[in-house]
C-alpha cells in the first residue's frame, strides 16, 4: 500500500503538558499551605475559603485531576498518535477535551473554597460540575477509541490498553458514585445513605487510585521508560499479562477501606483477598519496568530523567507492597485513621505519579519544540530535591502514624486509657508534621526548578505538528460482508460500538433503577434512630460545607480502646439518614460519632470560635465565620422533601411546620448558651463586638444542634431501658 503523509497533533500535547506544569505547582503549593497549618494553625485565620477543611479537598482534587490528569492526557495524546501512526481522530474533540478539562479544574478551584462540596473524598465536586466531567470524559473516550479505529498499525501497544481501561472504567465509577438528588444549583444529597454511601464511595475511591493514578501512569511507564532508555521493555509478554490481570483484580479491592466498619464481614474479606492478590500483577509490572534498564544502568547514572523513572517505579513497588499489607485486618487496624495512610498515598502520588509525569515532561517537551533541554544539571538538582523531599515527607509520617496508634491503644493497669486526652496524641507527633512540611517544601522547590528549566528550554520556540508517514491498514468494510455471520460482524465492528452501547445503557439504567432501590433500602433498621430535625439538617450541611470530615471521623471501630475513648461502636442502622455519610478517613482530631451530649453547648460555641480557648494546644484552626454568620434556612422545606424522597419519613405536617420547629430548637440552644453566660466569653465579646445579636440565627447554633445529636439516638434508648 502507498504510504500516506500526515501530521501528529503536537499542539494539543503541548497544551496539556503546560497545564500539567502549572497545575502541578498549584497542587503542591496548596498541599504546602495545608501542611503548614499543622505548624502554624492560625496563619490563615478568619478567611473561610482558605480554611483547612476546604483547602484539603482542593489539594487532593488538584493533585489528582489537575496535575496527574493533565499529565496523563499529555502523555496519552503524545504516545497514542505515535504508537498508532495516526493523528488524533478529531482536532475538535481534542480541543474540547482540553478546554473542558481546564474548565472543570477552574470550577473546582472556585467552588471547593466556597464550601460547595459533596464531601465524598476525590468526588467532592457538586452535581453540575459532575455532569461537565462526564461530558468531557466521554469526549476523551470517543476521541481515543476513534483514533484507535483509524490506526495505521494493526497491533495495539500495551500502553494504549492501559489508556482504554482508564477511559472506560473511570466513566462508570464516576457516574455511579456521584448519583445524587439536587436540591439547588450548588447543593445535592447523595442517593445512597450511610453504609451504602460508604461502600459506593470507597469502591469509587479505591478505583480512582487504580484507574486514574495507576493504570494510565503504567501506560506512560510502558511508553516513556523504553523511549528514554532506548531499550525495549524487559518482557512485552509480561506487560500484557500485567495489564489483563491488573484490571481484572483491581476493581474488587475497594472494601479494604472499610475494615472493622459496619460493612458486612464477607465484603471486607473479599476486599482483603483481592487486595492481597494485587501484589502479583503490580510487582510483575514494577519488575518489568526496572529490568528494562538492565544493562543500561550506566545511562541511569548520567541521565536524570532515568533516575526519576527509577525512583518512580521503586515507589510504585513500595506502595503496591504496602497496599496489600495494609489490607490485612491486623495492619489496617494500626494504619487506618492515622498518618500512615497519608504517607502511603504520598509515596504513590509524589513518588510514582509525580516522578513519572515530571520525567516524561523533561523528555517530551524538548522533543515537542525540536530542541534540547536547557540544563541537564538542573534536572539533576530537581531529582535530588524531589527525592529527599519525598523521603523527608513520608518517613516522619510513618513514625507519626505508628506513634499515634500506639498511644491511642495504651491502657493503664487499672483498665483506663493511658492517654484519655486525644490532644496528647496530637501534640506528641507535631514535630513529625513539621518535618513533613519541610519535605513538601523541598519537593515543591524541585518542581520550581523544572518550571524554570522548561521555560528556558522553549523560550522563543514554537511547536509545529510533527510529520510522519505510514501505509494505511487494509480497510475493513463497515457493512456486513456476504456470508459473514452476525456475531463475526459484531465482533469486527466491535470495540467502539460495544463500549458506547455499554456506557449508554449503563447510564440510562443507573439513573432510572438505582434511586428507587435505595429508597427502600434506607428504611430504618433500628427503631430508635430518627431522622434529623430541620435545624440539625442545616447544621449537618454546615458540617459538610466546612469539610469537618477531613479531620474528624464518624465511625467507631469495635476495639476496646476505641469504645473506651469514644463510646459504643457504630452500627449500620445508625447511619440510615446520613446523605452523604461522614465517616472520614483520617483522625487529625477525635472521632465525633458519639459527640452528642458529651460537652455543654457553651463549650462547642467557644471551641468553634477559638479551639485553643477551651482545649490547650489544639491545632484546629478557628472557624470564626460560623459564629459570626447567620444560617440560611430558606430552603429547609425543599431539603426535607428531597430527603423524604431518599427515604427519611418526614410527614407533610412536619415539613409544613419545619420553619417554626427550626426556630424553636435554635431558640432553646441560644437560651441555654445565654443561661450559661455566653455573653461573658471572649468568643462572644470578640465576635459580635458588644452588639446585641440574635444568637438563634447564627450558624454556630445549627452546628451545635447537629453535634449534640450525633450518636445519641441509640444511647438514649439504653438509658431509658435501664431506668
Amino acid at each position: 500500500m502507498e504510504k500516506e503523509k500526515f501530521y501528529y497533533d503536537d499542539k494539543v500535547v503541548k497544551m496539556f503538558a503546560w497545564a500539567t506544569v502549572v497545575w502541578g505547582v498549584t497542587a503542591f503549593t496548596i498541599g504546602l499551605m495545608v501542611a503548614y497549618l499543622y505548624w502554624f494553625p492560625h496563619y490563615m485565620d478568619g478567611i473561610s475559603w482558605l480554611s483547612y477543611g476546604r483547602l484539603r479537598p482542593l489539594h487532593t482534587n488538584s493533585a489528582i485531576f489537575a496535575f496527574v490528569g493533565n499529565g496523563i492526557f499529555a502523555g496519552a495524546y503524545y504516545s497514542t498518535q505515535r504508537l498508532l501512526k495516526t493523528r488524533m481522530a478529531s482536532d475538535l474533540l481534542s480541543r474540547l477535551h482540553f478546554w473542558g478539562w481546564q474548565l472543570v479544574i477552574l470550577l473546582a478551584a472556585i467552588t471547593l473554597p466556597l464550601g460547595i462540596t459533596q464531601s465524598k473524598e476525590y468526588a467532592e465536586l457538586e452535581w453540575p460540575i459532575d455532569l461537565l466531567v462526564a461530558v468531557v470524559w466521554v469526549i476523551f473516550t470517543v476521541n481515543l477509541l476513534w483514533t484507535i479505529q483509524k490506526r495505521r498499525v494493526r497491533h495495539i501497544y500495551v500502553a494504549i490498553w492501559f489508556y482504554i481501561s482508564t477511559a472506560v472504567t473511570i466513566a462508570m465509577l464516576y457516574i455511579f458514585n456521584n448519583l445524587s438528588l439536587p436540591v439547588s444549583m450548588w447543593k445535592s444529597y447523595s442517593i445512597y445513605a450511610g453504609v451504602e454511601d460508604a461502600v459506593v464511595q470507597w469502591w469509587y475511591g479505591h478505583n480512582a487510585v487504580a484507574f486514574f493514578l495507576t493504570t494510565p501512569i503504567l501506560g506512560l511507564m510502558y511508553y516513556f521508560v523504553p523511549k528514554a532508555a532506548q531499550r525495549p521493555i524487559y518482557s512485552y509478554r509480561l506487560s500484557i499479562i500485567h495489564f489483563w490481570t491488573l484490571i481484572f483484580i483491581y476493581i474488587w479491592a475497594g472494601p479494604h477501606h472499610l475494615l472493622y466498619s459496619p460493612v458486612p464481614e464477607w465484603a471486607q474479606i473479599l476486599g482483603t483477598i483481592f487486595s492481597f492478590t494485587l501484589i502479583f500483577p503490580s510487582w510483575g509490572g514494577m519488575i518489568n519496568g526496572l529490568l528494562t534498564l538492565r544493562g543500561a544502568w550506566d545511562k541511569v547514572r548520567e541521565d536524570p530523567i532515568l533516575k526519576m523513572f527509577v525512583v518512580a517505579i521503586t515507589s510504585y513497588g513500595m506502595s503496591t507492597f504496602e497496599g496489600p499489607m495494609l489490607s490485612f485486618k491486623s495492619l489496617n487496624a494500626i494504619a487506618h485513621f492515622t498518618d500512615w495512610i497519608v504517607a502511603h498515598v504520598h509515596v504513590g502520588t509524589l513518588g510514582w505519579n509525580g516522578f513519572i509525569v515530571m520525567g516524561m515532561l523533561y523528555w517530551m517537551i524538548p522533543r515537542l519544540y525540536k530542541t534540547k533541554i536547557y540544563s541537564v544539571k538542573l534536572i539533576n538538582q530537581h531529582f535530588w530535591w524531589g527525592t529527599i523531599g519525598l523521603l523527608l515527607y513520608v518517613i516522619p509520617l510513618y513514625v507519626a502514624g505508628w506513634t499515634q496508634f500506639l498511644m491511642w491503644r495504651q491502657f493503664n493497669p487499672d483498665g483506663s486509657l493511658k492517654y484519655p486526652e486525644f490532644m496528647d496524641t496530637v501534640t506528641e507527633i507535631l514535630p513529625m508534621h513539621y518535618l513533613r512540611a519541610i519535605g513538601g517544601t523541598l519537593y515543591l522547590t524541585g518542581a520550581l526548578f523544572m518550571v524554570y528549566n522548561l521555560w528556558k528550554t522553549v523560550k522563543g520556540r514554537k511547536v509545529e505538528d510533527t510529520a510522519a508517514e505510514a501505509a494505511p491498514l487494509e480497510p475493513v468494510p463497515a457493512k456486513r460482508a456476504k456470508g459473514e455471520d452476525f456475531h463475526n460482524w459484531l465482533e469486527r465492528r466491535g470495540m467502539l460500538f460495544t463500549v458506547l452501547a455499554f456506557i449508554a445503557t449503563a447510564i440510562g439504567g443507573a439513573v432510572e433503577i438505582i434511586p428507587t432501590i435505595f429508597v427502600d433500602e434506607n428504611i430504618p433498621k433500628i427503631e430508635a434512630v430518627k431522622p434529623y430535625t430541620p435545624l440539625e439538617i442545616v447544621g449537618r450541611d454546615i458540617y459538610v460545607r466546612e469539610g469537618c470530615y477531613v479531620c474528624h471521623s464518624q465511625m467507631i471501630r469495635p476495639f476496646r480502646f476505641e469504645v473506651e475513648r469514644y463510646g459504643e461502636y457504630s452500627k449500620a442502622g445508625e447511619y440510615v439518614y446520613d446523605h452523604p455519610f461522614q465517616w472520614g478517613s483520617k483522625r487529625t482530631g477525635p472521632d465525633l460519632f458519639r459527640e452528642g451530649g458529651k460537652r455543654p453547648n457553651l463549650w462547642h460555641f467557644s471551641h468553634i470560635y477559638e479551639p485553643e480557648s477551651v482545649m490547650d494546644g489544639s491545632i484546629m484552626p478557628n472557624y470564626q465565620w460560623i459564629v459570626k454568620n447567620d444560617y440560611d434556612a430558606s430552603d429547609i422545606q425543599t431539603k426535607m422533601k428531597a430527603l423524604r424522597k431518599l427515604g427519611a419519613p418526614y410527614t407533610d405536617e412536619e415539613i409544613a411546620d419545619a420553619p417554626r420547629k427550626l426556630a424553636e430548637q435554635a431558640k432553646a440552644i441560644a437560651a441555654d448558651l445565654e443561661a450559661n453566660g455566653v455573653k461573658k466569653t471572649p468568643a462572644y465579646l470578640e465576635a459580635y463586638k458588644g452588639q446585641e445579636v440574635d444568637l438563634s440565627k447564627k450558624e454556630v447554633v445549627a452546628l451545635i444542634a447537629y453535634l449534640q445529636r450525633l450518636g445519641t439516638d441509640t444511647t438514649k434508648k439504653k438509658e431509658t431501658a435501664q431506668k
Partner: protein
Amino acid sequence: MVALYLTIFVSLLLAVLFLIFFIHTVKSGQYDDAYSPSVRMLFEDDEPAETETASPDEKNQT
C-alpha cells in the same frame, strides 16, 4: 446492602466487557507476536526522509 450488590454487578459488567475485549484481541491476533512491538515502538517517531528536520531522537541523544 444493595450498594454491595450494585458495585459487584457493575464491576462484573466491566469485567465481562474486558473479557470480551480480551478474547477479541487474542482471536484477532494481537498477541501472536509478543516481542517485536516492544522494539518497533522505539523507532516509531522517525520523521519521513524528505523533511529537513532530523529526528528529535538523533538530535537529543543524552
